[in-house]
């Protein structure tokens, strides 16, 4: 909200104070479309996405999952898409679904299982009239609600693997650093190629999605990856975990490294590509990917590090994704040496 808006809201509050008898907030039973479109709502509950916050129960936001997900220190992620009543998502080939204005994408990060599960943060992407806005919300101790934390936070957390880490809740700018493309904030996850045909089909059946596009559901299911083609797994992993920065028009465009699924130029995806601005991130290696030699590849070196200035991804990572790294290592090792 701009200052004019704040001032107006202040005036409205004064006006309303005379007529509203109770200041107790009404528990929202439905999604607050105004909160999606305007202002910086202070509490996650202001949106009314969840009627049972702790168990993340929603009537109007549709849960979804990704075939190959982004690694975030092993956090469980609960993803929801909210599309306003009467509006429809447009399919755009195998790429990003085009959500109408008024939509919201919601992602809650949690650690622990069952009754021990703790919600840490919820990140919302709001599609407003002037574009997408990314906001981070931090859950309270009681797990009853989450508050807006534009500056993010740093929390001590024990991961599902039992590792004690300092977990970073991104600030509003850091949200954008991953979600920016050509200067605009954009969703990353819900691409048709990385969503199941079942889910997309249901969306079509319910009239919420225009069509089941060609190329849907082509990225491998990470949970069922045993026996899958290594190169396909690796390219899916890089697309989901790296390409939001490493592509033209995004944060790491100046590196010249383009890790998108659709990129087929070997140099662009790092094969025998020298570093540009890697600094000590290069770790003494000459190229991003040395075919046949994972240990001589900068990509492996940086994915295997947690040290700031070396570690990739730069944000949202306190631990190494050993499973993802193993796939990348295997992919590089299987390449014909050059």
């Amino acid at each position, binding site marked *: 909200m*701009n*200052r*004019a808006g704040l*001032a*107006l809201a*202040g*005036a409205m509050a*004064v*006006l309303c104070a*005379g007529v509203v008898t109770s200041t107790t907030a009404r528990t929202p039973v439905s999604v607050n479309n105004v909160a999606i479109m305007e202002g910086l709502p202070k509490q996650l509950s202001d949106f009314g996405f969840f009627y049972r916050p702790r168990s993340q129960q929603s009537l109007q936001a549709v849960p979804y999952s990704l075939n190959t997900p982004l690694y975030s220190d092993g956090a469980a992620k609960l993803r929801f898409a909210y599309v306003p009543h009467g509006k429809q998502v447009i399919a755009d080939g195998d790429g990003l679904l085009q959500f109408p204005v008024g939509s919201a994408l919601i992602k809650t990060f949690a650690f622990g299982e069952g009754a021990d599960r703790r919600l840490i943060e919820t990140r919302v992407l709001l599609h407003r009239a002037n574009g997408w806005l990314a906001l981070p919300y931090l859950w309270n101790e009681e797990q009853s609600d989450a508050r807006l934390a*534009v*500056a*993010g*936070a*740093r929390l001590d957390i024990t991961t599902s693997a039992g590792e004690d880490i*300092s977990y*970073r809740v991104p*600030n*509003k*700018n*850091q949200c*954008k*650093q991953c979600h*920016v493309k050509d*200067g605009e904030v954009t969703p990353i996850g819900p691409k048709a190629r990385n969503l199941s045909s079942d889910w997309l089909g249901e969306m079509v059946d319910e009239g919420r999605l225009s069509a089941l596009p060609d190329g849907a559901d082509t990225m491998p299911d990470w949970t069922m990856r045993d026996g899958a083609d290594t190169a396909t797994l690796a390219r899916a992993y890089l697309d989901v975990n790296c390409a939001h920065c490493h592509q*033209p028009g995004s*944060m790491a*465009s*100046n590196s*010249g490294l383009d890790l998108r699924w659709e990129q087929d130029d070997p*140099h662009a995806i790092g094969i*025998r*590509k*020298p*570093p*540009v*601005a*890697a*600094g*000590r*991130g*290069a*770790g*003494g*290696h*000459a*190229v991003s990917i040395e075919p046949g030699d994972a240990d001589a590849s*900068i990509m492996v070196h940086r994915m295997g590090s947690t*040290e*700031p*200035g070396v570690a990739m991804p*730069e*944000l949202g990572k*306190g631990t190494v994704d050993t499973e993802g790294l193993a796939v990348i290592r295997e992919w590089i090792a299987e390449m014909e040496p050059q």
Partner: protein
Amino acid sequence: MIRLSLAALALSSAVISAAPVLAETHTIAPGEGAQERLQEALILAEPGDEIVLEAGRYALTDGLSLDVDGVTLRGAGMDASVLDFTQQVGAGEGLLVTSDDVTLRGFAVENAKGDGIKSKGADQIIYDAVRVEWTGGPDANNGAYGIYPVEASNVLVQNSYVRGASDAGIYVGQSENIIVRGNYVLENVAGIEIENSNFAEVTENLATKNTGGILVFDLPGLPKVGGGSVLVAKNAIVDNNTDNFAPEGNIVASVPAGTGVMVMANERVQIRENSIFNNKTSHVMLIAYTQEFDDERYQPRPVEIALKGNIYGSGGSAPDFPGGEMLAAVLGGALPPVLTDGLHQGLYVFDNVPVVTLGLTQVGQSISEAAPTMWEKPDEFSFKDLEPVELPATMMTRLK
């Protein structure tokens, strides 16, 4: 109540109409919660606002970022307001700027784990009297770049100080319309580096005790290639003999210790009226890109390079490259002030100094095939001054 409410509404209307011109100043003090308070101010700032860092040391654990156009971040001086990243545990740089028309002045960034201050796609940015320092001095574990504007138009870096960068102290990459002036760069691998950029002026800087003083490079395979139109003038480039401490793999790791000015690839680079002293390999070195590349847009040779009005002191007595010592011995104990690999196209040396060529004839040829001789200046050549770099008037206004 109704009358009161109307009054409130009238009051807020006045605020609404005045809001766009009312720039605010947000003052931040060091101490408890500085990370959150400063980051929140950077996020909630409106265009035109100024964020003031009071004097003192700010202990920070995460990178800071600014994404609002037209904001000024100002401290009480480069030695007074210190953003201390010694305990940093996250992010790839100390401060990241991604918005346009930003002014950074009068504060320091110390011991960032990655780059010091990076601005990406941030047009019309001013870095003025900023200090970026790795306080332990040269170390391969220091961050790569001190002041790091990339992918921008209209960049001004002035009166700043950078020490200890394990790549370049001041690095301007993939940008155009650039002025880097009056800075002091000390004990970095490269003091100042202009890379894959056009229309740059690097003037009146002091580059000393780096591995290489001032580098003008162009690399293949990047979104923007074809760097050129770079003026390097009136700088003092002295004693750049620090052992190269860049991590292997980076292009600057191949810069010999003792390099004054180095031009790699690029078109139209003019090196004028500099004082270049006591650089033990070579005061001015011109080379083609040495590695393999596959980029049709890329031109790997130095083209149309001019040297005019420079003052050269002693140097070249201990060249830091294979065969360098032998070459120096053959040439009477030291390399002459100017060295070319022989792959340049158009070299205009007005200065009355000898030039040695390594006699390479093909791009990518190994230095072991060098056939060094003294280069003979052509009798006649034509030469045109570069157009001066003009920054938008609005930037000059912000300097006042």
